[in-house]
């Protein structure tokens, strides 16, 4: 086995009432776990592609992945990496507002934090089908940006470093919110782990 499931840094029920315990448990032990399992199945036959490489590195260099397995790596590797980040940027002690260098960058790009939040919410709500809304840093310009991706496509594959990820596959919210995706997207801001995101932002500036 090459890649491992990161430990969930809190209990299944820790994100309630915003994300219910059953959703966290199934999302983590079934969906995330299955992306990992499928990815490792692909990786074991292609050591030269994966050995000693972080999954985010593989996704960054997605054009170098053999064509035969490329779409599978986009799907399964993307699913693995996207969920690794999702659990990290959520926390029972989250919520509130960003701070430090990040809030400066947000103001520079969006004028206010409220604008940034509104745009990110609208982007996540607008995804048709399965996908994600993201706050990202462009690797070259270091500019913040809000983007959406479909299915499990990774921002790393388009030269962006993700800071905030909002999973809008229906499995992320259906047990509790059913068709009411906008409500889930609004509520998730109560458990956003700004400390982690700020740390990731400072790392991203050094890339």
């Amino acid at each position, binding site marked *: 086995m090459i890649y491992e499931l990161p430990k969930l840094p809190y209990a299944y029920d820790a994100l309630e009432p915003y994300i219910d315990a059953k959703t966290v448990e199934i999302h983590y032990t079934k969906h995330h776990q299955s992306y990992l399992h499928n990815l490792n199945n692909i990786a074991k036959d292609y050591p030269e592609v994966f050995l000693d490489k972080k999954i985010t590195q593989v996704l960054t260099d997605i054009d170098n992945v053999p064509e035969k397995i490329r779409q599978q790596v986009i*799907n399964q590797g993307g699913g693995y990496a996207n969920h690794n980040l999702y659990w990290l940027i959520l926390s029972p002690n989250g919520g509130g507002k960003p701070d430090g260098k990040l809030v400066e960058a947000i103001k520079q790009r969006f004028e206010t934090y409220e604008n940034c939040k509104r745009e990110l919410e609208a982007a996540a709500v607008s995804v048709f*089908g*399965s996908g994600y809304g993201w706050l990202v840093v462009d690797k070259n310009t270091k500019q913040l940006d809000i983007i959406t991706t479909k299915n499990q496509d990774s921002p790393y594959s388009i030269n962006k470093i993700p800071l905030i990820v909002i999973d809008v596959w*229906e499995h992320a919210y259906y047990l509790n919110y059913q068709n009411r995706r906008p409500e889930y997207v609004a509520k998730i801001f109560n458990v956003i782990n700004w400390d982690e995101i700020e740390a990731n932002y400072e790392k991203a500036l050094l890339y």
Partner: protein
Amino acid sequence: MKFELPKLLYDYNALEPSIDALTVEIHYDRHHRGYANKLNEALEKHPEFAEGKTIEAILSDVNSIPEDIRQAVINTGGGYANHNLYWAILSPNGGGLPKGELLAAITKTFGSFPEFKTELTKKANSVFGSGWAFLVVNKNKALEIVASANQNSPLSDGKTPILGIDVWEHAYYLNYQNKRPDYVTAIWNIINWDEVERLYNETV
């Protein structure tokens, strides 16, 4: 003219245990109704375009949709039409085997009914993300199994769907969660073959 939500021909709990009542209710009354409403909303910008056209005619010729509403109509019109089909080809009295000319065509194309069932099941389980698996009649009047992403309609590829399996997570998540294959297996117990056959005969 407005596209209307077709009446559901059975109670919300009629498809249990294959599909639970709450799923049918939300799927029909929220998702399906939402597509119908948003479709009508999108078409308000170009009332003359949709006048006198069926949704099938519109989806069969997507290039003729005004560009500023094209993607919206593909999404919401596709969602509207696909769900119209979905509810019609399910029934509490469904299951079993197709008959008549449809069965003959299935046997001719796929070898046997079990082989067809295996192939359509596999197609439905292999859709990555949101989408559908369909049994369609192609331009040569032959049967074919296709998958489509999101709400894209096979009509836009010149293929008429006569059976559709919705594999958006909303179709099964309340009862089956991540176990999509269990939902796909269970749906065979409620397929309304009389309706599928009627659609087949109408198309060929």
